[in-house]
């Protein structure tokens, strides 16, 4: 039996707002709270910078899950950005679900700069959920597969 038979690892793209969630991720690091390396973070100024097209693009390019992290509602550095995020993503996720795309592959989570533990826990949980779903087939672009 071959030892190279690797366990399936999902690819997770995390969009983190600069002021809360990115700092929360840093705090998770400071406290050495482990979470899977499957998570790759992209820094955005605010969660409201995340265009639905970015999310679809990530899926197209082979991501298996996309998570958007922002300040808790009411705590946005820009006062109202995450309120718009909340609406946009509620609608987008509902639409993806309507198209039969697994809703567990997308998530929005509010993580403050103080919530390093929550960040790590969220990522652990999300990775587990997505790993259980397996590879993203319903929003894949065959051209982007190796």
């Amino acid at each position, binding site marked *: 039996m071959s030892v190279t038979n690797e366990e399936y690892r999902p690819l997770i793209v995390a969009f983190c707002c600069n002021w809360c969630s990115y700092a929360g991720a840093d705090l998770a690091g400071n406290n050495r709270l482990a979470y899977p390396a499957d998570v790759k973070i992209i820094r955005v100024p605010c969660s409201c910078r995340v265009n639905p097209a970015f999310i679809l693009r990530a899926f197209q*390019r*082979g991501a298996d899950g996309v998570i958007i992290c922002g300040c808790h509602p009411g705590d946005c550095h820009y006062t109202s950005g995450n309120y718009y995020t909340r609406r946009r993503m509620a609608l987008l996720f509902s639409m993806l679900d309507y198209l039969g795309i697994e809703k567990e592959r997308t998530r929005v989570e509010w993580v403050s700069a103080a919530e390093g533990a929550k960040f790590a826990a969220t990522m652990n949980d999300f990775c587990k959920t997505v790993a259980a779903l397996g590879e993203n087939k319903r929003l894949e672009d065959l*051209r*982007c*597969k*190796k």
Partner: protein
Amino acid sequence: MRKIAKSALDSLFAAMSESKKVYLPVDGEGGARYQLWTEGTVLSEAVNTVRSAKDFFFPQTENLVEFKMEGKKLDVIDVRRETEDFVIFGVRACDVRSFDILDRVFLGAPVDTYYKNRREHGVIVSLACNKPAETCFCQTFGIDASAPAGDIVCHMTDDTLFLDAKTEKGEKLLATLEGVTEPCADSAADEQKALIRSRLDKLPLKGLTADKFGGDKTKEFFNDPAWASLSESCLGCGTCTFVCPTCQCYDIKDFKTADGVRRFRCWDSCMYSEFTKMSAGQPRLTQKERFRQRFMHKLVYYPANNEGIFGCVGCGRCLAKCPIQMNIVKVMKKLGEGGDKND
């Protein structure tokens, strides 16, 4: 000529499928379209498929070449593969003519090897139109729907399908079907042909002629004032182009894949504002100019370069599908009328 009972069509397709893939029109959501035959697939009786048969030789998107980069090293990969033999069954007379028109573009020098490869491997089995529709005007371009061209020409009566091989390719294929077909007189389908001809005579667009158009008519029509009103409400979408069996314009684009770049071509439409965009922009800046281009190409420019053959086959798809019901018939009738002097 050979024949087979209509009830035994399945065995015919099964026999064809033994050596080649067989595609045929199948009814589905939104109309008929070509599908690979498998056990149980039923031939559509629709007069036309929504998309034309040009897809088989000139697909909507097609990979041309791939580039792979590792460090500073660049590999160029030819993605062409020898196509498998295939049969397109049930092609109407108009669509069969469209292949001639495409051939003149893609097989003339320089030869488009991607197209040629597919063309060589395809066997065209045409089928005469029993019930030509009100939108049909193939007669305008000298096409006889009762006697289409093709490698094998078929006629269907209520109970029998007649097959007549017209080319070497066709004869070869027909020879493989001897087990399921039986021979018959060459005149066996004549009655059906006559019926079709009588029906063609009654079509509402029967009287439409293209006589006033042709390769030498650029000056006559280019500045016709009617273009303005004809194109007035054109949305600039690509529906007419994409359902047209003879539109052959494409764009070449690059797509970044996981580990390189894939260069592909895809259909383009002269109706689009981005069509043939160059460093200085699109040469045809208004929808009127783009609209004119499409119809002038079909009726004047194409014949000019191709011994007077028109670039339209009268299949009527654009008549049925245009969101605003503007189409080549209206254009042909309106042009040269001399009205619309306002612009």
